[in-house]
């Protein structure tokens, strides 16, 4: 099965070649796109314009997207869900997570007990490769990679996120138009 129509050296083929039919066919396609850009609204199946006007129009990020990290909190008590188990730090191939626990005294069933809670959480987004292994390791669905994808900062230090940033979300400047 020949895939490319094999040119036969007939007189018609030679004439076609002299009058540059092969080039004109290609030019018809580009002209079609030029007209399509002005008239066609369908950019996926048709010939419309595919551009996303990014800062003006926010892109639709998939729900599973791995973006900026976040430490989720209990929606009722606003306590952190993190139990300082360190599994995320162990799962991280890049060693970019530091979980710093502290011991607190709690009264459980009338008896004082020591309990390990989260003190500080350091997440170095400059080294993170967003593989989401930490998210999968987290037993309490606390650490999550969100849909926020604008992670640029002005300094290297700005890439290192502490617990507050991870819980509240970073203040990002949203540029209009």
């Amino acid at each position, binding site marked *: 099965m020949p895939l490319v129509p094999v040119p036969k050296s007939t007189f018609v083929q030679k004439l076609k070649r002299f009058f540059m039919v092969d080039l004109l066919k290609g030019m018809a396609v580009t002209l079609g796109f030029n007209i399509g850009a002005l008239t066609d609204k369908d950019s996926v199946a048709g010939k419309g314009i595919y*551009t996303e006007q990014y800062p003006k129009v926010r892109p639709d990020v998939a729900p599973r997207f791995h973006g900026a990290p976040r430490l989720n909190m209990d929606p009722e008590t606003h306590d952190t869900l993190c139990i300082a188990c360190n599994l995320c730090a162990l799962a991280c191939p890049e060693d970019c997570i530091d979980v710093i626990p502290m011991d607190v005294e709690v009264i459980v069933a009338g008896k004082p007990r020591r309990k390990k809670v989260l003190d500080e959480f350091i997440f170095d987004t400059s080294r993170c490769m967003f593989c989401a292994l930490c998210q999968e390791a987290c037993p309490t669905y606390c650490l999550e990679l969100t849909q926020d994808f604008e992670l640029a900062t002005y300094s290297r230090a700005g890439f290192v996120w502490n617990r507050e940033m991870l819980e509240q979300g970073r203040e990002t400047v949203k540029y209009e138009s």
Partner: protein
Amino acid sequence: MLFALLAAPSFIDSLLLKFFSEPTVNYVIWPFIQIGLVVVITTGWVAYATYLERKISAFMQARLGPMRVGPWGLLQPIADGLKLLTKEDFIPENADRWIFFVAPYIAVVAAFIVLAVVPFGPDWAVITDVNIGVLFVLAVSSVGVLALILAGWSSNSKYALLGALRSSAQMVSYEVSMGLAIIGALMFARTLSLSGVVGAQASNSIWFLLYQPVGFMIFLVSGIAENNRAPFDLPEAESELVAGFHTEYSGFRWSLFFMAEYTAMVVVTAVATTLYLGGWYFPFVYRLTEAKGYHNVYVVISLLVFLAKAGLLLYLYFWLRWTLPRFRYDQLMDLGWKWMLPAALINIVITAIGVTVIQGLDNPSGMHTIKSLSAGLGLTASGKVIAIAFGIINLFLTAGVLSLINWRSRDFNLKKQRRQIRLVDLPKGKPAVMPASPGDVVSEARP
């Protein structure tokens, strides 16, 4: 109001005559006003040609193009110009400083000076009507190649050097066929003045494109090649030579090269329009000239017609650039010397025979083919039919002769380009199965 605006030249003329003598006004002040207008308008047109190219290429590629500066990015050329003006003028170490400085100016001057003889319209819309206008255009535009060679040589960069070598070979070889292609049209025009060529077409109410289809094609292809535009953009082939001859240029000097390139494009489209598409001439033009008091309306409409025709050719430039792949250096030379040059020569021969036949048929046979010889070769309807027939015969004859000349060439010989691939359904092998038990591995352990 509109009438006052269109009547302005005569009004300014009378105003100027109050201060200066008539020769001064006619030969000094008016030309300066014209030159100023042409330079300003052409620069604007060139700036917006870059915008148009970006927009058109974007549309062809399902993109939007410049959108951020001004509505629909309309201020983009101005922003670009400002950016380039403020950039550092970087000179590479060990560059030949003076030549490096001068080269962009040569490019710009060579490109702009041609505009002096281009008839944008009748009457005051042409700066000066030199009686050897066509020669002037060819001569000056070939100076442009100097700029590229000097720029490439002085940059002290190998990419720039290769670009300069390519451009010199390319421009020299395409100038030949470009000059020869014009001759056919000039046989019908009987003059070298560009205004005269337009006048010949106007008084015959025909475009020379109909008499000279081959000549037009050769002229256009050679023009594109001479402008270093795709698919002939070898001197700056960005995927091979980074940026060719202007690799080392930056800032304003770089933008001068770009300005020269786009101006040269505008010039070639303008000359092609003048020679083959009837210049500013449009149908029923004489209705307007006969009506009194509308002289300036007539000139302005002619100007717009000219711009529209040149604009269409400019669109062709963009269209070709964003569709076709680039030629290789040797293939370009092949095309120039083995295809364009013979075609141009055949075109001259056939056109000469055609003109002779038309002249020979005029009286003895009782056919009336020639109307007058005052403005070009004035043909009657039957004469036009014969000329157009010769044009079409020329197309096929050129095809035949070129295929004879190049019958060995791979570009033309379809048998040598016959290609196909096969589809085979290979037998399926043993799947890459899991080892039967976890310990069943290929060989003994190393450590």
